[in-house]
């Protein structure tokens, strides 16, 4: 049985008895996962590759629904409802739970249009409102100064680190409740990584964050809670300092001390 820390604060998400099976697979890739995600805080998911951390992350905005035949069971509660319900409005869900990917994903359009994209999808057409919210999102993502003079330029002209911050700006422009980060710095250099980490920490004032990382130091630097996953199961969820200093599970200890992984 997994060791799960008691979270007394308000929760952003509650995963209960969650299982996930990929199309055509016999065995579920995620087994019996129960975990709370604290509101306005950062939860990191760590574990060896193939442990299911990204699969779990992509369940929160039901990204798996883009590909036919994937199956969920159990429940993930968000704002008082089970988002795994067949009646869940995925478009609305995804505007409430945003996502940042392993690689920067600047769309083939201008910097401004990239950030305005989600807003326009929501039906916002008013030019001055768009201008204001794009500027605010770019400022919050700490990239406004670098791009304010070239908002009309193609976003693909930006550097990798800038593009990733642009993607964060794009995601926060629609004011989501939760942001999912899927190894957001794995394609970036150390300096850009530092910038993104700093930004992630600032963002928890406003959104609840779940971050998947293959880098334990990164988890230790940025997160409040850390979950360790192994072979499709959540082994331990704890307050980050405690989990790294005094892990309760033997597997967690072996992993963080480098015995495997």
């Amino acid at each position: 049985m997994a060791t799960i820390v008691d979270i007394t604060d308000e929760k952003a998400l509650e995963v209960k008895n969650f299982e996930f099976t990929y199309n055509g697979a016999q065995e579920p890739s995620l087994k019996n996962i129960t975990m709370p995600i604290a509101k306005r805080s950062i939860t990191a998911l760590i574990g060896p590759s193939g442990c299911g951390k990204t699969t779990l992350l992509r369940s929160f905005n039901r990204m798996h629904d883009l590909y036919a035949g994937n199956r969920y069971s159990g429940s993930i509660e968000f704002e008082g409802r089970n988002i795994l319900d067949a009646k869940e409005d995925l478009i609305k869900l995804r505007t409430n739970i945003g996502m940042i990917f392993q690689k920067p994903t600047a769309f083939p359009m201008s910097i401004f249009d990239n950030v305005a994209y989600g807003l326009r999808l929501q039906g916002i057409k008013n030019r001055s409102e768009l201008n204001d919210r794009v500027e605010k999102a770019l400022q919050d993502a700490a990239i406004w100064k670098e791009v304010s003079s070239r908002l009309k330029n193609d976003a693909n002209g930006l550097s990798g680190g800038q593009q990733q911050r642009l993607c964060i700006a794009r995601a926060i422009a629609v004011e989501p409740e939760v942001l999912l980060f899927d190894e957001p710095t794995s394609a970036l250099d150390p300096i850009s990584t530092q910038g993104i980490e700093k930004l992630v920490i600032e963002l928890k004032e406003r959104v609840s964050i779940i971050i998947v990382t293959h880098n334990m130091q990164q988890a230790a630097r940025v997160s409040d809670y850390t979950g360790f996953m192994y072979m499709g199961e959540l082994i331990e969820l704890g307050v980050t300092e405690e989990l790294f200093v005094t892990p309760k599970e033997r597997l967690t200890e072996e992993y963080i001390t480098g015995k495997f992984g």
Partner: protein
Amino acid sequence: MNPIKKRMLINRIILILSSLSALIGISFLFWILSVLIMNGVDAINWNIFTFEGAPPGYEESGLKHALIGQLIIVGVATLIGVPLGILGGTYLSEYGQKSKMAYIIRDISDIMMSAPSIVIGSFVYAIIVIPMGHFSGWAGVIALTIIMIPIILRTTDDMLQLVPSTLREAAFALGAPKYKVITSVVYRGAKVGVLTGILLGIARVAGETAPLLFTSFNDNFLNTDLNEPMASLTVTMYNYATSPYDDWQSLGWAAAFILSMFILGLNIVGRLLIMKRKGR
């Protein structure tokens, strides 16, 4: 209407329209295929393979002359075009590599692959038919060869480039001269891919009609002399189909069916070869 609902409605409409256009496109194509199969199967009988052409109304008429003519023209074009194409492709991949000249040759070959085949026919008419004074099987062979070379050349080039350079280096390290490395190691590594290219190249030229119309021309009887006009399935099909006689039209469908099955067969075998290689 709320913007999300509106977007979802538009989405649904577009998805239906797109599926519908796919359905329209595909049903047209299957219409053609079913017409081909129904008329073809109706028209096929043993006489087709044993009798040569005959005036309309004759019971004993067939496509033997066209089948054999087709085999000779496409066969000889393949015998000439394949080695030339492979050697030319070898130059691009192994010697020319990333040089400017190699890229120019690649580009020109790519254009040639899409250039109108009837223009090639006019060219061959000027250089072969006019000097010879009459249509001939050779003229048809040359026209198809010109169409075939760029196809084989480009696929060979692509397939040889896929052979890992470590394989070449290993052979060089054993002291093999370059031509040996190419003929014994690189060719072997690219065997399946080059073979697929050859099959698709044959399939492509076998269906060509326009460049044969005024090169190999036609002959309603069996002729195996390449110096004389020679029948082909495609030109025979064209002549028979545009004739007003039912029995000739039916022979035209038989020719269309045989030719299409041959070409589809080559394409399917080519695909299976590629899949098998990818599977490994």
